[in-house]
């Protein structure tokens, strides 16, 4: 049971921060008010541009005042207003009364200083301790965050640790002086789902033991479900709704919140009729991709990115390939579309094996498989209009300029964009719109197989829902076979008919989505599903 004592650890009242001139709105955040009590975890959720990070950084005083100016309101930390404080005073508070954990553990640690020393640095700054006393305390803290062999790890460098370990070091750093407030800015977003589960548990555990108030920023509602006591929802710099976890997740009142929660895919796959067996659109047999060589001087590092992968994809179905980073799912996708060459194995498209084909022969088959990539901001040439990008493919295969153009216009309508927009450049579109354009580009080739390589992973949850709907619609309309690569189990549950789970290059389980989710056979699949945050919550629809 969480006790909420009387004086909140953090109280934000009517905080407004100005954006510099020329931005698309006046305020970064406007009239933001909420509080965090002792031993309470408050999740700040919102999509990109909602202002959640600005709020956190303003509390910590990490934004240079000349860039983003706080113009109204108060930030009360244990009753003291932070906005009036000098730089020196703020420095004394940072690390001691409030700690922060950031999103990217790899870059958040100094690569040339030992991790133990980096934790000790906080003690150097704020506490009056001898070097040996500091070291002792650091090791205690490292044990507190469940790091293995703390004494040995003290002398390690960040590049020698895993992502989860580095994040634990960050947490240890933030909490070593037992501050009343911990701010965590998307701390698990960059981690694998299994590591994420461990780190979330660690945060919950430590917070309960030390009574820390936690401001936890995230865009992932599953995480919110697992960890929040209360929730604050932000949009475009304003707080639109706040309440307890149950209130927000099960019975939201504001339309924006309702829309957001409604966009979160459920972990329960819908019931799908078993389709009649259609023709095979794509088949991979014994697909192998190995990187590296046995070196002359060194024992070679052979990385088996994909090992003996078998895959059958039929027309009219969506096959999901699910796994964490390093699982090989992207490798498989890129092999199949021949952006990289497989080391061995067969890839059959329309009955022909294209695995080892030379580029000149291969070209004809490229038309049949198309791919949509993850990053909408790098998938379109910034110097060419989107129209030029869409017609490039069809014109390679003999279509005239006018024919390609009318095809492009038609496709723009289908993906929900105005055909007139073909003359615009990529930077004039939002991320979600760019992804639609990429889908149009892929469809312009009239392929049989569409590969979506983490195509919605970089999108906000509401945009994600729309693009997913578009993908499903398009798949039905053109009777495509879709290969859907993702690490997100919720998305996979909703969109895939069948699913393949990969771990370290090997396919460990495969089957109909509903069956795999209901009765996972392989221990890895089970651990993946168990680690999925918020799996017990039913989000409001």
């Amino acid at each position, binding site marked *: 049971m969480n006790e909420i004592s009387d004086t909140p650890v953090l109280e934000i009242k009517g905080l407004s921060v100005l954006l510099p001139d020329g931005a698309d709105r006046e305020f970064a955040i406007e009239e933001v008010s909420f509080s965090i009590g002792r031993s309470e975890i408050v999740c700040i959720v919102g999509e990109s541009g909602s202002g959640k990070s600005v709020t956190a950084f303003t509390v910590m005083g*990490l934004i240079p005042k000349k860039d983003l100016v706080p113009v109204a309101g108060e930030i009360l930390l244990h009753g003291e207003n932070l906005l009036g404080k000098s730089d020196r005073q703020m420095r004394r508070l*940072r*690390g001691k009364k409030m700690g922060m954990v950031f999103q990217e553990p790899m870059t958040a640690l*100094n690569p040339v*200083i030992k991790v133990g020393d980096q934790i000790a640095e906080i003690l150097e700054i704020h506490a009056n301790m001898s070097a040996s006393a500091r070291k002792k305390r650091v090791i205690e803290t490292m044990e507190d965050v469940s790091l293995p062999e703390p004494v040995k790890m003290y002398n390690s460098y960040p*590049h020698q640790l895993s992502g989860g370990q580095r994040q634990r070091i960050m947490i240890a750093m*933030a909490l070593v002086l037992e501050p009343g407030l911990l701010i965590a800015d998307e701390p698990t977003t960059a981690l694998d789902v299994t590591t994420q589960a461990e780190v979330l548990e660690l945060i919950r555990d430590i917070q309960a033991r030390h009574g820390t108030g936690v401001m936890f920023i995230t865009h992932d509602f599953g995480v919110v479900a697992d960890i929040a006591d209360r929730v604050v929802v932000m949009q475009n710099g304003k707080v639109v709704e706040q309440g307890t976890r149950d209130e927000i997740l099960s019975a939201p009142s504001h339309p924006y919140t309702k829309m957001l929660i409604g966009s979160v895919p459920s972990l329960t796959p819908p019931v799908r009729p078993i389709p009649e067996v259609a023709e095979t659109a794509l088949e991979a047999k014994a697909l192998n991709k190995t990187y590296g060589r046995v070196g002359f*001087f060194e024992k070679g590092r052979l990385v088996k990115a994909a090992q003996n992968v078998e895959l059958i994809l039929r027309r009219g179905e969506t096959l999901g390939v699910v796994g964490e980073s390093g699982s090989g799912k992207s490798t498989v996708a890129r092999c199949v579309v021949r952006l990289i060459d497989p080391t061995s194995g067969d890839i059959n498209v329309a009955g022909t094996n294209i695995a080892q084909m030379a580029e000149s022969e291969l070209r004809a088959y490229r038309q049949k498989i198309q791919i949509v990539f993850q990053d909408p901001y790098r998938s379109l040439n910034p110097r060419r209009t989107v129209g030029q990008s869409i017609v490039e493919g069809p014109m390679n295969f003999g279509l005239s300029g006018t024919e390609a153009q009318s095809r492009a216009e038609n496709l723009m309508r289908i993906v929900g964009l105005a055909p007139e927009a073909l003359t615009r450049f990529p930077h004039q579109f939002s991320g979600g719109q760019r992804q639609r354009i990429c889908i149009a580009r892929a469809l312009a080739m009239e392929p049989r197989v569409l590969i979506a390589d983490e195509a919605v992973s970089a999108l906000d949850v509401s945009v994600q829902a729309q693009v997913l709907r578009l993908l499903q619609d398009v798949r039905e309309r053109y009777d495509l076979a879709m290969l859907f690569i993702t690490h997100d189990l919720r998305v996979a549950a909703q969109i895939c008919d069948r699913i393949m789970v990969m771990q370290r290059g090997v396919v460990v389980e495969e089957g109909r989505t509903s069956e795999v989710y209901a009765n996972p056979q392989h221990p890895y699949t089970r651990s993946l599903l168990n680690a999925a945050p918020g799996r017990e919550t039913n989000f409001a629809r």
Partner: protein
Amino acid sequence: MYLYILKRVLSTIPVVVIVVLFVFLMLRLAPGDPAAVIAGDYATAEDVERIREQLGLNDAIPVQMYRWIAQLGSGDLGTAIFSKLPVTTLIGQRLEPTLLLSLTTIVFTVLIAVPLGTLAAYKAGSWIDRFVMLFSVAGFSVPVFVLGYILIYVLAMQLQILPVQGYKSPFEHGFWVFLRHMVLPTMTLSVIYIALIARMTRASVQEILQEDYVRTARAKGQSEFKILMRHALRNAAVPIVTVIGLGIALMIGGVVVTESVYNIPGLGRLVLDAVLARDYPVIQGLILFFSFVYILINLLIDLSYTFFDPRIRY
């Protein structure tokens, strides 16, 4: 780490090979007849032929190549046409002034440029920053010898506080006399080097101050100064040291000019004398010498990364 060292040492081999090959080809592929050019406008046909023989140009190419490699392998950098002295001897005679000038220049440069660049990055946008950037652009723009003459004019001729030219060895004349004669040449040679290093230091430090781990240090409540010293500079060490090594090529070029302006009897002057005397083997030998020195220095600098960057060590 040992693997890194081994790989790095081995990777200098192709570079050395290229240099050797290039120098070999230069003589033989130049347009026209190099022997005639070397012999000069007033040479007779016999002179030209004599020079061709001396340069070994009459033999078949593979024979020349073999001789060339054997010669280099035994440490022989060639023989001067006119004095008949081995190039290595000539280098030995003139090495000291150039070496000392280079050392004082490097020390002077690093002591000034690195703090200047760091300060400029720390106070980005301030007048110090603008001054450093301006100085750096100006430093790149003024030719070394013009700068030399300006300094001579102001400090030696008008103010008369320093000698106009000349070199005095510290071993013969004592340290202070040596230093007095070294001030102007060092200053002249350093300017372009300082401009380069200050600019690169500023760029590196500024880039590092944007990194995430600097933000983490701020979140810990660390002071800006300690962040600069402890976090920024340690990470900037590698790029700064790298550019110091690369800048040596600039400095070697400058040495030739500086020694000419200040009448210092070093290797730079040797090059010029060889050019005037059209003594090609000497020029060639000096090219090889300087190139090898440059390659060696950069190798040592790359190896020093093991000290600065733990990612290479483990």
